[in-house]
């Protein structure tokens, strides 16, 4: 799975019949240590109710069809988790809803 931040949404009214009613979110891959965006974007189907700004991880390829929402659908990227915390080398580098003190 790959870590990314939800940076927006993608709306498509004329689309393949099967994927009607599914939410598309715009993801930007992030470097997990710096949490900076890598300028590498994709559109993924939301299977966990992720919100803007949240860090998530997604599955791609055929595994993206292994959720109730995406089963049998032409989906190759599905958000399967909203990340609460990332620890790297013993240090918590990301904590969801943590008050950022600058």
């Amino acid at each position, binding site marked *: 799975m*790959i870590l990314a931040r939800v940076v927006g949404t993608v709306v498509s009214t004329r689309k393949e019949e099967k994927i009607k009613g599914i939410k598309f979110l715009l993801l930007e891959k992030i470097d997990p240590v710096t949490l900076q965006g890598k300028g590498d974007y994709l559109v993924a189907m939301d299977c966990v109710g992720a919100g803007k700004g949240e860090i998530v991880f997604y599955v791609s390829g055929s595994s993206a069809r*292994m*959720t109730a929402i995406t089963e049998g659908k032409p989906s190759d990227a599905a958000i*399967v988790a909203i990340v609460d915390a*990332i620890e*790297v080398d013993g240090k918590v580098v990301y904590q969801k809803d943590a008050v950022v003190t600058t």
Partner: protein
Amino acid sequence: MILAKVVGTVVASQKNDGIAGGKYLLVRTCDTRGREKGEYLVALDLVGSGRGEVVLISQGSSARQTEFTYQKAIDCVIVGIVDRIEENGQVVFRKEEGR
């Protein structure tokens, strides 16, 4: 499979129901000497790996060919902990010293 080093953990309480209950580690691809060099991945740990260990990663649909991940929305799993890597007749990585 690819070689990667376990560098941390990823905690996610809100998950797609199929993949709850697993332990998700942050790994980074590494060279044959166990030195980190590439992209980061979130991998489901099936073998009890610890931070700093070099592991074998399996990706894509093959990641679903285990008891826990069968027909689950998973595309990256740790399938083994590396003890030793021999390259061109020379041991280039050994678990204890390589850390």
